[in-house]
């Protein structure tokens, strides 16, 4: 481990790529990686490497790494474990800058794999060459069409993922895609022989295309460094972590009560919060947080307004909000009177504001315009199911969100009408959830982010 993100540019943004172990057999990884790169539209020179020669997807194979032109930026290694050490040595000799090893069979299988991995570690320590993996699913730089992976090519966007598990790459991208968001960079770490979670966090923290970093972690290779980098990155962009291994306590007789209670998970949980990281408990929450935090600004206070045109959902939202420590105070007398001027007589102009059956979409805009002058820090607008003018309503909410200073969240109660409206709102930076509780949960996280940020600036 080199303890720096130095050199990761040639990995993520290569000008040239070699696929070592490229194959013309459509069943083989060596083919699927080539196809992903070609179909993904990689713009630089692409060299399949295979000692048997031949062609892959119209490109003539180079017989060995030694025969590559000097200074290739990235080698994708799709070769058996037995050839790994010599391939790495050849890459280093041929001045290849970085590599990603998709091959499995190392520390995760023990014995011989363990031995090879140790040799790899020793070899890499002495060079500026960077290796991602082995035993990983590769990575993708979606905005620059680099697909060093067999995973899907997702919609383009500004969310980036660091994952211990390769299969989460596609799952994350797909779940964000379904909500109208896309991915910038997505990377699976595997055995972390060289490149660690801390290197990747540092790199993505500085990456301007990345607006939010989602991490699925199973262990921390460089815990202290990861935390100190996270503290800096969190000041610029949100980090969401799903950390597995919440269960075992590893209880043994210790000197102190503190030692006995220091299960790994509790310790990590506190340390993650301390550096401004959002910890998700479940995959659902991981998606909800990644989605909402990438769209919304933090809430710098705990007073919110809830706007609805039905009683029940407003009550449900209020219960959830109070449970998270939000304050829901009525608007000023003056604003209450203003609201009464255009809302129906049965409306409630306290908070939650219940507009009753809303016939006019513009009421939302007028109400939000008035209420944005309250000393409140965020809004939740609850949309019931009877809207036939939902595009117009979505436009109104988008427009309102641009004219008020506070973050605006939407709870759209009927999922079957949501997909296109959700995209419309999402792509205009208005986060939308079906249930008010989920929206309030994310707003609560953003309020604690606001608290954290205010306290960091003071330090």
């Amino acid at each position, binding site marked *: 481990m080199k303890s720096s993100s130095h050199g990761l540019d040639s990995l993520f943004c290569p000008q040239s790529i070699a696929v070592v172990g490229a194959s013309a057999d459509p069943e083989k990884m060596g083919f699927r990686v080539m196809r992903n790169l070609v179909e993904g539209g990689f713009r630089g020179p692409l060299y399949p490497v295979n000692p048997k020669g031949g062609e892959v997807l119209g490109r003539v194979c180079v017989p060995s790494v030694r025969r590559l032109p000097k200074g290739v930026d990235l080698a994708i290694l799709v070769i058996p474990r037995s050839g790994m050490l010599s391939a790495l040595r050849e890459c280093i000799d041929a001045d290849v800058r970085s590599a990603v090893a998709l091959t499995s069979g190392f520390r995760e299988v023990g014995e011989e794999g363990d031995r090879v991995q140790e040799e790899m570690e020793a070899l890499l320590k002495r060079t500026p060459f960077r290796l991602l993996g082995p035993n990983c699913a590769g990575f993708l730089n979606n905005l620059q069409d680099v697909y060093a992976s067999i995973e899907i090519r997702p919609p383009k966007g500004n969310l980036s993922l660091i994952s211990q598990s390769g299969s989460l790459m596609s799952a994350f991208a797909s779940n964000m895609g379904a909500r109208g968001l896309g991915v910038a960079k997505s990377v699976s770490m595997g055995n972390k022989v060289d490149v660690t979670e801390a290197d990747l966090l540092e790199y993505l923290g500085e990456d301007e295309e990345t607006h939010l970093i989602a991490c699925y972690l199973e262990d921390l290779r460089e815990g*202290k460094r990861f935390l100190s980098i996270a503290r800096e990155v969190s000041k610029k962009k949100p980090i969401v972590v799903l950390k597995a291994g919440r269960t075992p306590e590893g209880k043994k007789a210790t000197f102190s009560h*503190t030692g006995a*209670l220091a299960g790994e998970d*509790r*310790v*990590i949980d506190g340390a993650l919060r301390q550096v401004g990281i959002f910890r998700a408990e479940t995959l659902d929450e991981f998606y909800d947080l990644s989605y909402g935090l990438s769209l919304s600004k933090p809430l710098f206070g705990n007073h919110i307004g809830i706007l609805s045109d039905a009683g029940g959902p407003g009550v449900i939202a209020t219960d959830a909000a109070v449970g998270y420590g939000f304050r829901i105070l009525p608007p000023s007398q003056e604003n209450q009177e203003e609201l009464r001027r255009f809302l129906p007589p049965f409306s409630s102009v306290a908070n939650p504001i219940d507009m009753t059956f809303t016939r006019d979409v513009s009421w939302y805009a007028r109400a939000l315009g008035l209420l944005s002058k309250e000393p409140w820090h965020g809004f939740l607008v609850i949309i019931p199911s009877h809207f036939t003018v939902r595009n117009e309503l979505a436009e109104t909410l988008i427009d309102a969100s641009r004219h008020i200073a506070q973050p605006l969240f939407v709870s759209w109660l009927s999922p079957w009408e949501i997909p296109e409206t959700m995209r419309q709102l999402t792509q205009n930076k208005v986060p939308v959830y079906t249930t008010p509780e989920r929206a309030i949960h994310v707003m609560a996280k953003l309020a604690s982010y606001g608290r954290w940020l205010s306290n960091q600036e003071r330090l």
Partner: protein
Amino acid sequence: MHPLIQQATTHHRNLLEPEVWEVLNAYGIETPPFRWARSPREAKQLASHFPFPQVLKVVSPDIIHKTEVGGVVLGLRDENEVEAAFEAMEQEIRRTLPEADLRGALLCPQMQPGRELILGKVEDPQIGSVVMLGLGGIFAELLRDVVFRKTPLSAFDAKEMIADLKFHDVFKGVRGSGPLDLEALVRTLLAFSRLVEENPAIKECDLNPILLYEKGLCAVDARMLLSFSE
């Protein structure tokens, strides 16, 4: 580094409880006022320094769990009881633990009951020095209501630790008690953080319990494990 810790690590030994209390006091962490008596007669004389009832706790490098060997006597009402308790305690321990190296007893006034808390420090293999705050008694053992943070702590960290306890509502005061002194608790958390940061030889430490009151707090039991290799 505190001179007592420095001296102890040089001699490859841990601190005795009166020494731990002295270190805590030096960092602004409150304990009851105390004296270290080496004999029953000395204990009797020292008893005049404090109000009654008083508490005697055995001092020995060989005894970690004092209560289990009869090494803590509560509710001593006058200096004669203090003297007698010292004699009886020593006799009892000499009988059950003949090898134990006895260094007298710590004498202090018995504190009013308060909300029990645990404050501690351990080394985490992945992230280094961490402190723990927990609600004591049943809250710690059964409900495991504890919160960790990495050192050093900021004032914000300290407040968040308190807020992150599941049952932090107990600090508002229950059963007729007023709100508890959270400012004193924040001060103590910061002092404890400074203690463990400035004394990396402290490998593990427990202040258990700390009694939190409407005004102030008091650590009434403390143990510290030092590492000598550093």
